């Protein structure tokens, strides 16, 4: 166990008192940049091409969601939170609804629980496809083979969005979870649809894996780059594929199971290298697992109602007083919602524990010593979503 004091990030060097400049050249990457996965202003201290230190400047997508939640009625919050981790939207509202239900007083029917988990898995596949595609753009450029990978991945992601559209009517932010249940039930013939679409994606995943695995350039660009040690990962709060790629077998669906996962066995995908390649590989293997899990969840979907409360027409729900924390295993890791309620129309405090926030903080530690070209590779492998980082 390494104490945090032994793991120090490389801080920007002091200014020269005479010239007022630093020794390294500061390059400001972002916030508008083809590869910053969103809006990140990364100040990079360069010595030639070598990165000496990085200073991330986040907050460009800060929308004051936590403050906003303190003014909204309980039922109105879940759709707002879906815009947090906007690449795996169902997971956000799921976490919030679990947290509110954790305050007590609400029974969630089993069918609704399983439906929510199904939406989570589909969101996970969709998010990992985007992660894989944007990795291609990062490594191969906006004009190059990387874009081809990106477009192939997005084409596969369209199938997931088709599934969501058949199910909920919206492709992307379905607002599926509501306090006490799920909003939409699966239509007739859904299992056939799911089966077909997921089989298509499964077949393409093979192709995409081989496209990258058999490319010596990809191997050279991602092997050994941005290694994150398990102790540092734990100390920072890294979670999800980032932690699992560093050898930590931590998956909330297994270690802190909720809803359907209490009855389904989830295989955890773990790698030990901790480099960018491991992180990408964990994601693609997880997408595979998620495809299987989606089928499993749908096959085992219990019968019954999907609402534990009367359907929401006007928000008069008042959650009981207390504090509650609930976390789901989002596409990026532990997406947690901590709620403090004083039995008002709105919560007193909603704290969003964002996986990308913790994962992104690792960049200060793992980037120094690499080259500029590795900055985008590592950032892509950490897969931050700035709606989640900034909230």
């Amino acid at each position, binding site marked *: *166990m390494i104490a945090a004091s032994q793991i120090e990030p490389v*801080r920007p060097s002091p200014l020269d008192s005479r010239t*007022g400049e630093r020794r390294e050249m500061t390059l400001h990457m972002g916030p508008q940049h083809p590869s910053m996965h969103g809006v990140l202003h990364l100040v990079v201290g360069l010595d030639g091409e070598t990165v000496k230190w990085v200073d991330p400047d986040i*907050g460009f997508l800060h929308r004051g969601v936590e403050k906003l939640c303190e003014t909204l009625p309980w039922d109105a919050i879940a759709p707002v939170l879906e815009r947090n981790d906007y690449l795996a939207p169902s997971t956000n509202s799921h976490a919030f609804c*679990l947290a509110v239900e954790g305050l007590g007083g609400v029974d969630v029917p089993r069918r609704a629980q399983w439906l929510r988990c199904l939406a989570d898995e589909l969101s996970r596949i969709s998010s990992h496809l985007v992660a894989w595609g944007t990795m291609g753009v990062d490594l191969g450029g906006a004009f190059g083979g990387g874009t081809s990978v990106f477009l192939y991945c997005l084409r596969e992601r369209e199938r997931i969005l088709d599934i969501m559209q058949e199910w909920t009517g919206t492709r992307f932010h379905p607002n599926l979870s509501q306090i006490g249940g799920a909003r939409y039930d699966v239509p007739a013939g859904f299992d056939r649809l799911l089966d077909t679409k997921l089989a298509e994606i499964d077949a393409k995943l093979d192709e995409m894996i081989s496209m990258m695995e058999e490319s010596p350039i990809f191997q050279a660009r991602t092997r050994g780059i941005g290694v994150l040690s398990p102790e540092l990962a734990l100390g920072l709060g890294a979670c999800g594929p980032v932690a699992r790629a560093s050898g930590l077998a931590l998956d909330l669906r297994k270690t802190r199971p909720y809803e359907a996962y209490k009855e389904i066995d989830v295989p955890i995908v773990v790698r030990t290298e901790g480099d960018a390649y491991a992180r990408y590989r964990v994601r693609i293997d997880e997408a595979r697992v998620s495809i299987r899990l989606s089928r499993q969840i749908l096959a085992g979907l219990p019968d019954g109602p999907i609402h534990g409360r009367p359907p929401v027409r006007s928000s008069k729900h008042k959650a009981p007083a207390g504090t509650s924390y609930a976390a789901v295993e989002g596409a990026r890791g532990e997406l947690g919602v901590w709620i*403090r309620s004083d039995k008002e129309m709105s919560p007193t405090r909603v*704290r969003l524990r964002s996986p990308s926030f913790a994962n992104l903080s690792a960049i200060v530690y793992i980037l120094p010593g690499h080259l500029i070209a590795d900055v985008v590779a590592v950032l892509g492998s950490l897969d931050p979503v700035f709606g989640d980082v900034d909230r």
Partner: protein
Amino acid sequence: MSAADASATAPGALPTVEVAPGDLLALAQRYLSEGFRWYICTTGIESAEGLEVQHFLRNPESGGEIVLRVKLDALAPKLPSLYPVFPGADWSEREAWEMLGIEFEGHPGLRRLLLPAQWDGFPLRKSYPIATPCLPYRPAAEKPAAAVVPAPSPIPAGEAT
């Protein structure tokens, strides 16, 4: 029934330990050595009872969880920073400071994280109206050095070599 009493009965509530600010680091070290190595998050809360900070830790092996709850003085909310024990506290504490004005002593550099550097006020405080208009650009408030340098280094300005 106050929230604190009710928290014991809510199914989603986490095991909480009340800590005085002075004992925080020692207790955190103790929990770290007992296996609570996974830092989850730091939450700053302002409620009717005042300001408090909750550090949430987890044991990756056993799955055990603990929340270290530190109640703060409303007029001078100060407590030691958890950064020497968990490096993840760096960003979380910066956020708690900028949103609620809670001071973390021993933090390597408390500066704005999510908000622009020149922001006034602590938005998550109940006294901060949500309808505060967007920050107007105040060039007079900006020091020339700040324009050149993106962020102050942890070394105090007076000791720059």
